[in-house]
Protein backbone atom coordinates (compact mmCIF):
# COMPACT_ATOMS: atom_id res chain seq x y z
CA UNK A 1 0.00 0.00 0.00
CA UNK A 2 2.74 2.44 0.96
CA UNK A 3 4.61 1.55 -2.21
CA UNK A 4 1.55 2.47 -4.26
CA UNK A 5 1.31 5.77 -2.37
CA UNK A 6 4.94 6.68 -3.13
CA UNK A 7 4.50 5.64 -6.73
CA UNK A 8 1.37 7.77 -7.04
CA UNK A 9 3.12 10.80 -5.55
CA UNK A 10 6.02 10.29 -7.96
CA UNK A 11 3.72 10.04 -10.96
CA UNK A 12 1.95 13.22 -9.91
CA UNK A 13 5.35 14.90 -9.57
CA UNK A 14 6.52 13.66 -12.98
CA UNK A 15 3.37 14.81 -14.74
CA UNK A 16 3.60 18.20 -13.03
CA UNK A 17 7.26 18.64 -13.99
CA UNK A 18 6.55 17.75 -17.59
CA UNK A 19 3.29 19.65 -18.04
CA UNK A 20 4.52 22.78 -16.30
CA UNK A 21 7.60 22.72 -18.60
CA UNK A 22 9.81 22.96 -15.51
CA UNK A 23 11.58 19.97 -17.06
CA UNK A 24 12.34 21.95 -20.20
CA UNK A 25 15.88 23.13 -20.79
CA UNK A 26 14.37 26.17 -22.56
CA UNK A 27 12.41 27.25 -19.47
CA UNK A 28 15.54 27.10 -17.31
CA UNK A 29 17.44 29.21 -19.84
CA UNK A 30 14.58 31.69 -20.03
CA UNK A 31 14.46 31.89 -16.23
CA UNK A 32 18.15 32.77 -15.97
CA UNK A 33 17.60 35.39 -18.68
CA UNK A 34 14.77 36.89 -16.60
CA UNK A 35 12.64 36.76 -19.74
CA UNK A 36 9.57 35.17 -18.17
CA UNK A 37 7.70 35.01 -14.90
CA UNK A 38 6.79 31.35 -15.45
CA UNK A 39 9.49 29.58 -13.39
CA UNK A 40 9.45 32.27 -10.70
CA UNK A 41 5.68 31.86 -10.49
CA UNK A 42 6.01 28.10 -10.06
CA UNK A 43 8.70 28.24 -7.38
CA UNK A 44 7.20 31.33 -5.72
CA UNK A 45 3.65 30.02 -5.45
CA UNK A 46 4.86 26.61 -4.25
CA UNK A 47 6.89 28.45 -1.65
CA UNK A 48 4.13 30.72 -0.37
CA UNK A 49 1.81 27.74 0.06
CA UNK A 50 4.66 25.66 1.50
CA UNK A 51 5.53 28.25 4.14
CA UNK A 52 1.90 28.57 5.26
CA UNK A 53 1.49 24.80 5.24
CA UNK A 54 4.53 24.08 7.38
CA UNK A 55 3.65 26.88 9.81
CA UNK A 56 0.16 25.36 10.17
CA UNK A 57 1.54 21.86 10.72
CA UNK A 58 3.85 23.18 13.43
CA UNK A 59 1.36 25.48 15.13
CA UNK A 60 -1.57 23.06 15.18
CA UNK A 61 0.62 20.01 15.88
CA UNK A 62 -0.90 18.23 12.90
CA UNK A 63 -0.08 14.53 12.85
CA UNK A 64 0.79 12.58 9.73
CA UNK A 65 -1.68 10.26 7.97
CA UNK A 66 -0.15 7.44 10.01
CA UNK A 67 -0.62 9.29 13.31
CA UNK A 68 3.04 10.21 13.75
CA UNK A 69 4.39 13.50 15.04
CA UNK A 70 5.84 15.47 12.12
CA UNK A 71 9.43 16.58 12.62
CA UNK A 72 11.25 19.05 10.43
CA UNK A 73 14.99 18.56 10.58
CA UNK A 74 16.77 21.93 10.59
CA UNK A 75 19.60 22.23 8.07
CA UNK A 76 23.12 22.21 9.49
CA UNK A 77 24.57 25.67 9.99
CA UNK A 78 27.18 26.92 7.60
CA UNK A 79 27.76 29.17 4.64
CA UNK A 80 30.60 27.86 2.47
CA UNK A 81 29.11 24.50 1.59
CA UNK A 82 25.76 26.03 0.71
CA UNK A 83 27.19 28.88 -1.31
CA UNK A 84 29.93 26.99 -3.16
CA UNK A 85 27.86 23.83 -3.54
CA UNK A 86 24.95 25.97 -4.69
CA UNK A 87 27.04 27.76 -7.31
CA UNK A 88 28.37 24.46 -8.65
CA UNK A 89 24.83 23.09 -8.78
CA UNK A 90 23.58 26.23 -10.54
CA UNK A 91 26.28 25.99 -13.21
CA UNK A 92 25.20 22.43 -13.96
CA UNK A 93 21.48 23.19 -13.72
CA UNK A 94 21.79 25.88 -16.39
CA UNK A 95 24.04 23.79 -18.65
CA UNK A 96 22.12 20.51 -18.52
CA UNK A 97 18.81 22.32 -18.09
CA UNK A 98 17.63 19.69 -15.65
CA UNK A 99 17.79 19.18 -11.90
CA UNK A 100 17.69 15.83 -10.08
CA UNK A 101 13.89 15.39 -10.28
CA UNK A 102 13.07 16.42 -13.85
CA UNK A 103 16.05 14.52 -15.29
CA UNK A 104 14.20 11.31 -14.46
CA UNK A 105 10.96 12.66 -15.86
CA UNK A 106 12.78 13.36 -19.14
CA UNK A 107 13.97 9.76 -19.19
CA UNK A 108 10.32 8.71 -19.08
CA UNK A 109 9.54 11.06 -21.96
CA UNK A 110 12.10 9.10 -23.96
CA UNK A 111 15.11 11.40 -24.32
CA UNK A 112 18.04 8.99 -24.53
CA UNK A 113 20.85 11.58 -24.04
CA UNK A 114 19.47 12.45 -20.58
CA UNK A 115 21.01 9.13 -19.50
CA UNK A 116 24.39 10.84 -19.81
CA UNK A 117 23.23 13.62 -17.50
CA UNK A 118 21.84 11.10 -15.00
CA UNK A 119 24.94 8.91 -15.14
CA UNK A 120 27.25 11.92 -14.76
CA UNK A 121 25.23 13.30 -11.86
CA UNK A 122 25.62 9.97 -10.06
CA UNK A 123 29.37 10.20 -10.77
CA UNK A 124 29.37 13.77 -9.46
CA UNK A 125 27.71 12.63 -6.27
CA UNK A 126 30.32 9.88 -5.92
CA UNK A 127 33.09 12.42 -6.49
CA UNK A 128 31.68 14.55 -3.68
CA UNK A 129 31.65 11.52 -1.37
CA UNK A 130 35.30 10.86 -2.23
CA UNK A 131 36.41 14.44 -1.59
CA UNK A 132 34.02 15.29 1.24
CA UNK A 133 36.61 15.33 4.03
CA UNK A 134 38.96 17.53 2.03
CA UNK A 135 36.36 20.18 1.19
CA UNK A 136 35.54 23.20 3.37
CA UNK A 137 32.00 22.97 4.76
Amino acid at each position, binding site marked *: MRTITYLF*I*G*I*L*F*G*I*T*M*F*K*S*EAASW*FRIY*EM*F*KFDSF*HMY*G*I*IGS*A*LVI*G*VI*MIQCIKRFHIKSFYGQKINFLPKEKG*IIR*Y*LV*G*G*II*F*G*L*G*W*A*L*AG*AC*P*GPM*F*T*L*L*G*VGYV*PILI*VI*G*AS*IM*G*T*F*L*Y*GLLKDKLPH
Partner: protein
Amino acid sequence: MNWIYEPWPWYVAGPMIAFIMFLLIMVDKNFGMSSNLRTLCTICGAGNKVSFFKFDWKSQKWNLIVVLGAIIGGFIGSNFLSVDTAVLINPDTISDLKVLGFKSAGAAYLPTELFDTNALLNLKNVLLLAIGGLLVGFGARYAGGCTSGHAISGLSNLQAPSLVAVIGFFIGGLLMIHFIFPLLF
Protein backbone atom coordinates in the same frame (compact mmCIF):
# COMPACT_ATOMS: atom_id res chain seq x y z
CA MET B 1 -10.85 19.28 -19.38
CA ASN B 2 -9.01 20.61 -22.42
CA TRP B 3 -6.69 22.69 -20.27
CA ILE B 4 -4.97 19.52 -19.14
CA TYR B 5 -3.56 19.03 -22.64
CA GLU B 6 -2.18 22.55 -22.73
CA PRO B 7 1.03 23.47 -20.88
CA TRP B 8 0.11 24.05 -17.24
CA PRO B 9 0.42 27.66 -16.07
CA TRP B 10 2.53 28.48 -13.03
CA TYR B 11 -0.49 28.93 -10.78
CA VAL B 12 -1.44 25.30 -11.38
CA ALA B 13 2.08 23.86 -11.22
CA GLY B 14 3.27 25.75 -8.11
CA PRO B 15 0.34 24.70 -5.89
CA MET B 16 0.69 21.17 -7.27
CA ILE B 17 4.33 21.04 -6.13
CA ALA B 18 3.26 22.29 -2.69
CA PHE B 19 0.61 19.56 -2.66
CA ILE B 20 3.23 16.93 -3.52
CA MET B 21 5.42 18.18 -0.66
CA PHE B 22 2.34 18.06 1.61
CA LEU B 23 1.62 14.45 0.66
CA LEU B 24 5.23 13.42 1.33
CA ILE B 25 5.25 15.17 4.71
CA MET B 26 1.97 13.52 5.62
CA VAL B 27 3.35 10.05 4.92
CA ASP B 28 6.33 10.78 7.23
CA LYS B 29 8.74 11.52 4.36
CA ASN B 30 10.28 14.62 2.85
CA PHE B 31 10.58 16.24 -0.55
CA GLY B 32 14.15 16.01 -1.83
CA MET B 33 15.21 14.37 -5.05
CA SER B 34 18.99 14.64 -5.12
CA SER B 35 19.48 12.26 -2.18
CA ASN B 36 18.43 9.54 -4.61
CA LEU B 37 21.70 10.07 -6.45
CA ARG B 38 23.54 9.17 -3.25
CA THR B 39 21.34 6.12 -2.79
CA LEU B 40 22.11 5.02 -6.35
CA CYS B 41 25.85 5.34 -5.58
CA THR B 42 25.38 3.10 -2.56
CA ILE B 43 23.46 0.52 -4.59
CA CYS B 44 26.33 0.50 -7.09
CA GLY B 45 28.66 -0.46 -4.25
CA ALA B 46 30.22 2.93 -3.43
CA GLY B 47 29.84 2.16 0.29
CA ASN B 48 32.69 -0.35 0.08
CA LYS B 49 35.13 2.41 -0.76
CA VAL B 50 33.73 5.60 0.72
CA SER B 51 32.08 5.86 4.13
CA PHE B 52 29.72 8.64 2.94
CA PHE B 53 27.88 5.96 0.99
CA LYS B 54 27.86 3.40 3.77
CA PHE B 55 24.23 3.40 4.89
CA ASP B 56 21.25 1.13 4.62
CA TRP B 57 19.92 2.15 1.22
CA LYS B 58 16.70 0.24 1.86
CA SER B 59 15.70 3.07 4.20
CA GLN B 60 15.61 5.27 1.08
CA LYS B 61 13.73 2.80 -1.09
CA TRP B 62 10.58 4.92 -0.79
CA ASN B 63 12.33 7.83 -2.53
CA LEU B 64 13.50 5.58 -5.37
CA ILE B 65 9.86 4.59 -5.85
CA VAL B 66 9.02 8.30 -6.09
CA VAL B 67 11.71 8.54 -8.80
CA LEU B 68 10.19 5.58 -10.62
CA GLY B 69 6.89 7.45 -10.46
CA ALA B 70 8.57 10.59 -11.84
CA ILE B 71 9.77 8.54 -14.82
CA ILE B 72 6.29 7.10 -15.40
CA GLY B 73 4.82 10.59 -14.96
CA GLY B 74 7.04 11.90 -17.74
CA PHE B 75 5.84 9.08 -19.99
CA ILE B 76 2.18 9.73 -19.17
CA GLY B 77 2.52 13.51 -19.45
CA SER B 78 4.13 13.40 -22.86
CA ASN B 79 2.15 10.54 -24.39
CA PHE B 80 -1.34 10.94 -23.00
CA LEU B 81 -1.64 14.49 -21.68
CA SER B 82 -0.08 16.54 -24.44
CA VAL B 83 -0.91 17.48 -27.98
CA ASP B 84 1.92 19.83 -28.88
CA THR B 85 4.96 19.78 -26.59
CA ALA B 86 6.85 22.73 -28.12
CA VAL B 87 7.74 25.17 -25.35
CA LEU B 88 6.64 28.68 -26.24
CA ILE B 89 9.27 30.72 -24.47
CA ASN B 90 9.63 34.46 -24.81
CA PRO B 91 10.31 35.47 -28.46
CA ASP B 92 13.33 37.49 -27.28
CA THR B 93 14.73 34.34 -25.66
CA ILE B 94 14.11 32.43 -28.88
CA SER B 95 16.09 34.91 -30.94
CA ASP B 96 18.91 34.91 -28.35
CA LEU B 97 19.04 31.11 -28.58
CA LYS B 98 19.02 31.15 -32.37
CA VAL B 99 22.07 33.39 -32.31
CA LEU B 100 23.77 30.76 -30.14
CA GLY B 101 22.85 28.09 -32.68
CA PHE B 102 19.79 26.56 -31.00
CA LYS B 103 17.50 26.47 -34.03
CA SER B 104 14.94 24.31 -32.23
CA ALA B 105 14.12 27.11 -29.75
CA GLY B 106 10.37 27.67 -29.71
CA ALA B 107 9.71 24.48 -31.67
CA ALA B 108 10.63 21.67 -29.28
CA TYR B 109 10.43 20.63 -25.61
CA LEU B 110 14.20 20.23 -25.30
CA PRO B 111 16.83 21.59 -27.71
CA THR B 112 17.29 18.89 -30.35
CA GLU B 113 20.86 20.18 -30.72
CA LEU B 114 21.63 18.63 -27.30
CA PHE B 115 18.93 16.04 -26.65
CA ASP B 116 18.14 14.42 -29.97
CA THR B 117 19.48 10.86 -30.02
CA ASN B 118 21.66 11.85 -33.00
CA ALA B 119 23.27 14.52 -30.84
CA LEU B 120 25.06 11.66 -29.08
CA LEU B 121 27.24 11.28 -32.15
CA ASN B 122 28.75 14.68 -31.43
CA LEU B 123 31.51 14.43 -28.83
CA LYS B 124 31.12 18.06 -27.77
CA ASN B 125 27.43 17.53 -26.95
CA VAL B 126 28.16 14.40 -24.96
CA LEU B 127 30.85 16.26 -23.01
CA LEU B 128 28.54 19.20 -22.29
CA LEU B 129 25.79 16.91 -20.99
CA ALA B 130 28.30 14.96 -18.91
CA ILE B 131 29.84 18.10 -17.40
CA GLY B 132 26.38 19.49 -16.67
CA GLY B 133 25.36 16.29 -14.92
CA LEU B 134 28.64 16.07 -13.00
CA LEU B 135 28.21 19.62 -11.68
CA VAL B 136 24.58 18.97 -10.73
CA GLY B 137 25.44 15.80 -8.80
CA PHE B 138 28.51 17.22 -7.09
CA GLY B 139 26.93 20.58 -6.29
CA ALA B 140 23.67 19.13 -4.99
CA ARG B 141 25.47 16.90 -2.50
CA TYR B 142 27.98 19.57 -1.47
CA ALA B 143 25.10 21.98 -0.87
CA GLY B 144 23.09 19.23 0.82
CA GLY B 145 20.13 19.48 -1.53
CA CYS B 146 18.81 20.63 -4.88
CA THR B 147 15.84 22.62 -6.11
CA SER B 148 13.34 20.42 -4.26
CA GLY B 149 15.32 20.03 -1.03
CA HIS B 150 16.44 23.65 -0.67
CA ALA B 151 14.34 25.94 -2.89
CA ILE B 152 11.04 24.25 -1.96
CA SER B 153 11.39 22.20 1.23
CA GLY B 154 14.12 24.20 2.95
CA LEU B 155 12.78 27.67 2.17
CA SER B 156 9.24 26.54 3.10
CA ASN B 157 10.66 25.73 6.50
CA LEU B 158 12.40 29.14 6.58
CA GLN B 159 15.89 27.64 6.70
CA ALA B 160 18.63 30.26 6.27
CA PRO B 161 21.12 27.71 4.83
CA SER B 162 18.61 26.94 2.08
CA LEU B 163 18.42 30.62 1.20
CA VAL B 164 22.21 30.69 0.86
CA ALA B 165 22.05 27.59 -1.34
CA VAL B 166 19.33 29.07 -3.57
CA ILE B 167 21.33 32.28 -3.94
CA GLY B 168 24.22 30.03 -4.97
CA PHE B 169 22.00 28.23 -7.52
CA PHE B 170 21.25 31.58 -9.13
CA ILE B 171 24.82 32.85 -9.08
CA GLY B 172 25.88 29.63 -10.82
CA GLY B 173 23.04 29.67 -13.32
CA LEU B 174 23.55 33.32 -14.22
CA LEU B 175 27.31 32.82 -14.62
CA MET B 176 26.71 29.85 -16.90
CA ILE B 177 24.18 31.50 -19.16
CA HIS B 178 25.55 35.02 -19.37
CA PHE B 179 29.30 34.37 -19.32
CA ILE B 180 30.03 30.73 -20.14
CA PHE B 181 27.39 30.04 -22.81
CA PRO B 182 28.88 32.61 -25.21
CA LEU B 183 32.16 30.68 -24.95
CA LEU B 184 30.56 27.28 -25.40
CA PHE B 185 28.09 27.88 -28.20
